[in-house]
């Protein structure tokens, strides 16, 4: 049924998706907050940059990340000068790429949730002596919970499902960068259809269950 390398790919995929999602929630929150509140002229531009991964083919993103994070690219120069080496072909590199690639799927639901809250509850909290940080924790986060649930599920699921970017910068190294989607591709290309089916069916089932959970638990959080 499933080989050791398949299981290793599954484990790696879940590690990648979990770490990526966690990072995305941390990074995505201030970005979403800024996008939801700002009246800056930059709002459109920043919003568009965040949304780019939705429209760009993954191979394009992967190629640019490969160049940017490579030894001669700007990101690569930075990571080298920090003593971190270069990121392609490493798990850390996959995390960085996945964070960028899944960013809109986390930022947009949170941003929508923040926008739906509006100004009023924040003003009310301020007149009730809550500082801005206090307000964020005691009012904004609880009210944005559906948005966070959607963001978590979509960010996780999208990272599990990503393929093109991982293919471009991962190098298909067992236990390090060979995730399930790449493993399936290899099985299919090598015409090992039986193994491909097991993995692919597992992924379909997983994605279905996760979306089912999202739509049943969170009927209002469907907008992305």
């Amino acid at each position, binding site marked *: 049924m499933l080989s050791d390398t398949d299981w290793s790919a599954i484990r790696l995929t879940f590690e990648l998706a979990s770490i990526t999602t966690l990072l995305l929630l941390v990074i995505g929150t201030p970005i979403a907050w800024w996008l939801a509140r700002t009246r800056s002229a930059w709002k459109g531009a920043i919003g568009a940059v965040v949304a780019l991964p939705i429209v760009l083919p993954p191979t394009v993103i992967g*190629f640019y990340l*490969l*160049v940017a*994070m*490579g*030894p*001669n*690219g700007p990101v690569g120069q930075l990571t080298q000068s920090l003593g971190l080496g*270069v990121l*392609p*072909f490493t798990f850390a590199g996959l995390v960085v790429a996945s964070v960028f690639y899944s960013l809109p799927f986390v930022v947009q639901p949170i941003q929508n949730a923040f926008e739906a809250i509006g100004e009023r509850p924040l003003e009310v909290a301020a007149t009730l002596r809550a500082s801005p940080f206090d307000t964020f924790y005691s009012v904004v986060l609880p009210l944005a919970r559906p948005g966070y649930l959607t963001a978590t599920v979509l960010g996780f699921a999208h990272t599990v499902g990503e393929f093109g970017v991982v*293919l*471009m*910068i991962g*190098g*298909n*190294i067992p236990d390090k960068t060979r995730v399930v989607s790449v493993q399936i*591709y*290899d099985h299919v*290309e*090598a015409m090992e259809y039986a193994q491909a089916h097991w993995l692919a069916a597992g992924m379909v089932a997983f994605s279905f269950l996760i979306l089912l959970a999202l739509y049943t638990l969170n009927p209002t959080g469907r907008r992305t």
Partner: protein
Amino acid sequence: MSKRFLSLFASLLVLGFATPLRAAEVQVAVAANFTAPMQKIAADFEKATGHQAKLAFGATGKFYAQIKNGAPFEMLLAADDETPAKLENEGLAVSGSRFTYSIGQLALWSAKPGYVDARGEVLKQGAFDHLAIANPKLAPYGAAAVESLTRLGLLGSVEGKFVQGENIAQTYQFVSTGNAELGFVALSQIVENGKIKSGSAWIVPPGLHSPIRQDAVVLTRGKDNPAAAALVKFLKSDAARTVIKSYGYAL
């Protein structure tokens, strides 16, 4: 309608119908690694015969699946010799039409000048983090690379440094962007006018691996197309062979 316009219209009609009377079209699926030489050959072919070769470039495996499912190709220039044979066995290609149009050459290449020496000693020293190869399960060049390393007795020592591209184009990207210090690529990817374009390379001696034959075959749909027959003939001509060799292929 003015007389002038009428005569223009008439001459357009004549032109439009005149071409197909003399020349035909052939739909060709071409392996992605053969893109550059084939574009040159198709242009020469049209000049020499008046026939037109309509080219589609892509992965051989995908073409195979498409042909099996009724894609309108009349000829296939594959990246291997297995796919044309399989098509012939399955009755999707004209039997006896198969021939080797080029033989791929494997090269160990680095984007850094002077990094790869003329005898490939760099592999033995092993002073690198990443060695890029095409996935040996999927790509003939990858299989050839593994075969060569095995013959050299180096597979065990460098295997842990493999980074795999899904195909030879991606492998080339790994090396060209400097993310992998060196890698096994197709010579055709790095030569121009018979010289290495940039970086440093060692052409792996053909004796170290079984030949990377690229076979062409006329598909059932192209059976009676005079343009297909003409293209087969043209690919075997000296003119075409010169072009093919100049792009880094052996024959």
